[in-house]
């Protein structure tokens, strides 16, 4: 016999106090009370039995001994005696909590909690509460990634409760396969493994449990939340206009899974630079509000144009306006984030003389901050100019620049008809070159046609091994770009005034394209990332490691960079930042999982295995209360002693109250 409960030294003071209390109560009980009667004669007449004092004494003694025996039995129960060969003492329970996005949806009306994850966490807390000191448990959070958040099997309830409390719904789907495999590996070799899955059943996989779980493992699933409709943002992005850099247009797609048409109010708001997620309790500048009606079971795509930007961070939110009694159960897919690249007017220095065509093309664009140097010094120090300006244009078209110092420069530049002495590429002069090929995929050549360009004289670049070709003539390349760590430039091998480009609308577009390319700007929406996947984030500067700030402002430090790409798994919607590089990188991530947003489908239910109480109906949705789960969990012997104590006290109370009535003694 071994004792797993309280030690005798711990129990002894309590026992003595209880014994003294019982003795006092006993003495109070057997004490005779004096009762006055008006006449004793009647009582004498009715008392027929003779009182045997030894009988009374014995009766009272037996009563006292019964009390003491009850107390001793309670003490024995508190010491939790067990036979020496008890091998069933330790049981291992794995509690898998689904933390996918759909678990943030509201729970059913009978669940008595606000959201499905709250129900699951409450039940997990209850399960932990009902563990005996010999039981071990582990908490698994199952979202896009699966992890044992409580560490290995342990009996420390406070640690388990803490691990449960830290679980919150992620903007990802559930990898149920991985979760079950992890549970199986954790319980491998355990004599009595018990696996409990707390989920809403919104996953497509139906794993074969007998292939994954050990044969002796008991498995049971509890499902939260009934099938319900939902509205969700399926797509959201924003891009700038080419001509008007301060204007933008928004692409928006929303889906309605309710069985009735829904009128939604769409709010586009800007977020401040210190906000990585949308906080509904804070005021945000509203950029636009739109109303859209979406038919039942369909999606609506909208393009909202000519909006004025107030922030580079934008969030879209939807709210059901009609029918008013319809509640949107899932909040996570009602928000979407998008980011617009920062825009600032590039400072352009044009070293040119009497080239009105170039000057006009530059001045036409209000988004440029242009300055001209019409009387250049000699020599022209390119390094100094690029240090002071974003882009330097060296135009050798109308009046020749004979003396340009290009020995040490870094930055961005456009060379127009460069002289052989300062041309970035070796050149050879040709006459009337014929354009043979235009690289239309190059950003500099987008939206323009240079095929029929007539050029009087050009400098053909002879050797451009590290450059990207833009325009090639039969004689050789006449327009090329080059990018290195320190230099980025466009070289145009002919004079603008000696070609008919100056008469074409392609010239200002070519200038815009060149500036955009040099400034890394484009009109495409910035790429966002879907949550629940691994992201390959381009890093613009050479770094071996970067630190990434998540939407909840926690920092993942030291993420390695390979091939100018950092890899990160993200499970939270919002804005992510890499602030310690230049230029800083910022991008948006959104929940983009139609399966998580589709709450109208019937929850997937895995069949119970080795279940004691629910095994008879493996394919029917579970409707029994959670007590059925508790039956399977480790027996609550921890509370048996409380129960035993209460029963003993009740017996004592009944015995005490009825003693004089001769009902019990």
């Amino acid at each position: 016999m071994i004792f797993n409960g309280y030690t005798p030294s711990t129990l002894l003071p309590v026992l003595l106090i209880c014994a003294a209390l019982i003795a006092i109560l006993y003495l109070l009980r057997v004490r005779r009370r004096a009762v006055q009667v008006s006449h004793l004669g009647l009582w004498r007449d009715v008392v027929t039995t003779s009182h045997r004092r030894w009988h009374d004494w014995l009766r009272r003694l037996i009563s006292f001994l019964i009390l003491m025996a009850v107390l001793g039995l309670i003490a024995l129960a508190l010491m939790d005696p067990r036979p020496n060969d008890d091998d069933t003492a330790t049981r291992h329970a794995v509690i898998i909590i689904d933390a996918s996005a759909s678990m943030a949806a509201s729970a059913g009306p009978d669940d008595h909690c606000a959201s499905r994850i709250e129900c699951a966490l409450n039940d997990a807390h209850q399960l932990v509460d009902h563990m005996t000191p010999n039981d071990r448990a582990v908490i698994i959070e199952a979202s896009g990634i699966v992890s044992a958040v409580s560490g290995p099997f342990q009996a420390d309830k406070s640690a388990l409760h803490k691990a449960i409390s830290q679980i919150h719904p992620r903007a990802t789907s559930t990898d149920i396969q991985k979760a079950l495999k992890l549970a199986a590996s954790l319980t491998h070799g355990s004599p009595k493994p018990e696996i409990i899955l707390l989920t809403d059943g919104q996953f497509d996989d139906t794993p074969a449990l007998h292939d994954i779980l050990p044969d002796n493992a008991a498995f049971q699933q509890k499902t939260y939340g009934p099938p319900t409709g939902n509205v969700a943002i399926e797509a959201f992005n924003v891009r700038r206009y080419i001509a008007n850099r301060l204007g933008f247009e928004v692409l928006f797609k929303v889906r309605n899974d309710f069985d009735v048409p829904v009128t939604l109010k769409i709010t586009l708001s800007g977020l401040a630079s210190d906000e990585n997620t949308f906080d509904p309790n804070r005021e945000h500048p509203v950029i636009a509000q739109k109303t859209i009606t979406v038919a039942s079971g369909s999606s609506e795509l909208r393009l909202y144009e000519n909006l004025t930007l107030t922030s580079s961070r934008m969030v879209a939110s939807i709210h059901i306006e009609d029918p008013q009694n319809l509640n949107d159960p899932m909040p996570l897919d009602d928000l979407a984030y998008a980011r617009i690249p920062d825009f600032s007017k590039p400072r352009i220095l044009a070293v040119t003389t009497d080239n009105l065509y170039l000057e006009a093309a530059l001045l036409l664009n209000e988004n440029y901050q242009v300055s001209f140097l019409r009387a250049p010094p000699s020599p022209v120090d390119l390094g100094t100019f690029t240090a002071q300006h974003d882009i330097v244009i060296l135009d050798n078209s109308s009046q020749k620049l004979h003396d340009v110092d290009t020995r040490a420069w870094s930055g961005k530049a456009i060379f127009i008809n460069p002289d052989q002495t300062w041309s970035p590429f070796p050149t050879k002069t040709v006459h009337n070159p014929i354009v043979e090929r235009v690289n239309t995929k190059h950003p500099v050549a987008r939206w323009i046609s240079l095929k029929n360009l007539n050029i009087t004289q050009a400098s053909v670049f002879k050797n451009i091994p590290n450059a990207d070709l833009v325009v090639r003539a039969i004689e050789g390349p006449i327009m090329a770009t080059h990018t290195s760590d320190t230099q980025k430039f466009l070289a145009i091998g002919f004079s603008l005034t000696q070609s008919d480009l100056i008469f074409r609308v392609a010239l200002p577009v070519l200038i815009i394209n060149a500036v955009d390319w040099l400034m890394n700007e484009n009109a495409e929406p910035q790429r966002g990332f879907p949550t629940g996947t691994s992201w390959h984030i381009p890093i613009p500067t050479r770094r071996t490691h970067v630190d990434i700030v998540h939407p909840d402002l926690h920092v993942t430090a030291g993420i390695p960079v390979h091939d100018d790409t950092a890899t990160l798994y993200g499970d939270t919607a919002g804005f992510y930042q890499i602030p310690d590089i230049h230029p800083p990188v910022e991008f948006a991530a959104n929940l983009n999982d139609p399966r998580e947003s589709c709450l109208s489908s019937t929850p997937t239910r895995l069949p119970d295995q080795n279940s004691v109480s629910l095994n008879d109906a493996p394919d029917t949705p579970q409707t029994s209360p959670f007590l059925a789960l508790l039956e399977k969990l480790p027996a609550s012997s921890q509370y048996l002693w409380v129960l035993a104590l209460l029963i003993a006290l009740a017996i004592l109370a009944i015995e005490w109250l009825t003693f004089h009535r001769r009902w019990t003694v």
Partner: protein
Amino acid sequence: MLFDDAFLKKIEYLYVMSKKVFTGKLRAERKTRKVASGIEFADHRNYAPGDDFRALDWRVFARTEKLLIRLFEEKEDLSIYFLIDGSNSMMFNHGAKFDYARRMAAALGYIGLCNQDRVGFLGFDDKIIDRLPVTTGRGQIFNIFKFLENLHGNGKTSFEDAFRAFCSQNQRRGVAVILSDFQNPTGYESALNFLHYQQFETYVIHIVDPEECNPGVHGDVTLVDAETGEQLDITMTPKLIANYKKAMEALCLRLEAYCMTRHMLYFKTPVSTPFEDIVLTVFRAGGFLK
């Protein structure tokens, strides 16, 4: 306060009710009784051997050949004595029975005074504690209240001793109303017989306390006699309590039977019953007011 304004209102109400109850049935103030001599003819009754021949109604005999005695009304004063038990047994349960007895005596006395009867009060245990000589007139009611309020008993009950003393002090016969719980260790039979033989018309009002009829104690207790101080260790069991209730009921039935055989009016009243109800019951029983 034993006799407060509410009590005065009640007994005034009782007086009015007594008038209504007996209208048409009895005369409002019955101060005469039918005898064979007198002034005012009242009734006939059959002749019985020993009757005075002078009272025979010969005219009726001539017509019907029946011998009838002529009865006449004779005015007299009726004396009503209230004998209130003031022993320790009446002090059970904070003197509930004693208070009840005093209130009832006061109410009946007031109605008697209103009917121009002579009313006297006597408190007794094993002796006469105090007495208020017979008096008449409504104005005496406050003296009665004062007497009853100052009446306190503290002793054993002995009806016979007390009644003997009462009879010796009151030669004028009349109605004797005994208000007691009849918890008497020496018995009540001889005492009631004595009153009967002394030609007192006796009314027995048996006052009981529900707590003594239905004791609410359980377990091992020591019973203490309120009068003698004797003690009895006893274990209260449901069976014992049931037997006690039977014995108590038998006591009441025995007393009632005894009274009936001796033409005494018997009323049993628990102290929980409003005293005005039992007063009206006494009126309805008839004979209290003549």
